[in-house]
């Protein structure tokens, strides 16, 4: 799952893959703003067929959080 998400973030958000580690924080390390994070969430929903509640987005601070969220619901 992590590798898939890493590839997705790197491609769609145009980020250097080496930055995308499990502990990377979306806002602080990957420099995504809340709208870009919402965009990423939509991409993940489409890719993995999991609905991410808008109210849960603020709890997804790191790449690892997103991986765990998707794994729990996949």
């Amino acid at each position, binding site marked *: 799952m992590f590798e898939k998400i890493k590839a997705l973030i790197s491609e769609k958000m145009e980020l250097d893959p080496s930055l995308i580690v499990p502990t990377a924080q979306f*806002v602080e390390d990957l420099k995504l*703003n*809340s*709208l870009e994070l*919402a965009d990423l969430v939509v991409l993940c929903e489409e890719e993995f067929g999991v609905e991410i*509640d*808008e109210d849960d*987005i*603020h709890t997804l*601070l790191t790449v690892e959080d997103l991986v765990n969220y998707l794994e729990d619901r996949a």
Partner: protein
Amino acid sequence: MNKFFSTKEKREIQNLRDLLLGSRDLYGTKDYFRYKRGGEIKNISFADFASETERLTAALFEMGLSGKAIAVIGETTPEWVMTYIATVNAGGIIVPLDRELQHEEICGFLNKAECAAVFHSPAFTESFENSRDKLPLVRYFVELPTNKKKYADSHPYAEDDDSVKEEPLRPQLPLPEGKLPFSAVSLRGKVLLDCGDTSADDYEADMDRLCAILFTSGTTGTSKGVMLSQRNLVSAINSSHRSTEFSYDDILVSVLPTHHTYEMTCGILTPLLIGATVCINESLKTVLKSMMLYRPTALVLVPLYVSTIYKKIWDTAEKTGKKKMLETALKASGVTMKVGLDLRKMLFSTVRAAFGGRLKMIVCGGAPLNPEFVPRFDEFGISIVEGYGITECAPLISVNPAFAKKYHSVGPAVAGLESRIDAPDDQGIGEICVKGPNVMLGYYRDPDATDAVMDEEGWFHTGDCGYIDEDGYIFITGRQKNVIVLNNGKNVFPEEIEEHLLDMNLVRECVVVGRDNEEGQTVGLTALIFPDFDRARAMGLDDLTATTEAIKKEVAILNRTLPAFKQIRGIEIRQTEFVKTTTKKIKRHKVNEE
């Protein structure tokens, strides 16, 4: 007529009921709102919206809520807006709350404002059910319909039933207190009106009486309740209408939360005044989809959206191999514009296509906008009308008009509002002060805080610094207050976050600041921390790196309990104490100079 305001004849309203009923008569079956419900696009006309709001108003009178505080909390829906208007029209006090607040804070605000009813989206039903004992004054919990798929769709309105011919009977029993669906309140209102109820007609609005309490950011203890009168609201709506160039033909997409007075005044009530259609974006996740679906001609945004849109334009151009073409088009457009030929619509059709292809104006406020964006969007044929406001002014202070724009300025004060600079320095820079019908009544049950911002001559001290040029245009240069204004329009009081940090064992002193990115936009909070090194050593953390890592872990745990805009995005550890005043308070303004 002031030279800064459009000379076109414009409608002005006397009160919110005049706004509602006038728009019903003027715009009738035209769509006021378009929104998604149950997966389908629905619409409600100006006439139907007014009719439903009138029903709700009649019901509120009967429920004994005239003169009482009524809270509304939830995502944007037509019913949320109806609740706001009906409360004011029934002589109540509307208390819009931020749905991102934690439950304890929501209860705190409901009690502080002594709310007798709360209209809430289904997301709050369970938490309110479990907190009844903490909310002794709340008599009605009315569940609003929702746009969210995860809650079952309800039928919010009383159906018109023409088959009933007999004279309707006025209900003998009052609506039961406790939990009620919106549809039950709507139905009661319909029956009352069918029985000839004239409560709303008989009620004479006192324009200077309290009609809205808007809590500023912070916790129940630190937040201030801005008290607005109907005169404040009406004046701000009329000003917004005169200063922006919205028209009857405009279609807006509402993306900002309605508990913000900026969105409510400029993005919801101004379109009601002018007959423009508002399409409701259902979630942060669907912003771009909504643009393509509803194809707006105008948007009311905060800087975060404007900078993201700009980035998106260039990212899309690069991905589709059109970056060079876009750069060439920009140069060509500049040349043709100089000879009076406006080819922007044609040259930048692909740029505008990303937002539905019809976007021509963005009203931007809520936080300072990087001034570079204004000419850049102008080049694409999208005019940015920047405004400056503060909740205490309902919220409009000034608008930089599209037809007399000065770059880097937030424009002249809106009609009816006077502006001046208090204690200007030799460059004319001082605190921006305003006086006029937009200015609040004061802070709710806080005369000391009110006295601190309102002087004896009635001038409201904004806490923002700047200067006013010879044409009356306001230029903002900084802030006096500690509040951090993020580029998404959210205000954060650093003291609130600092309290959380100081609860941590390893933090001895701290200051929370807003750090700017490369574009000069304040995007998130940074905590400057002086650790408690003695305690760190006692915990076996021998060096700075270990202490820093331990603090970062604690901050990450804290962040999970905070709404996104209050989360700490950066941590800077320092090895010396902060500079303090003689009373041992940290000198905040010195922090950035160190």
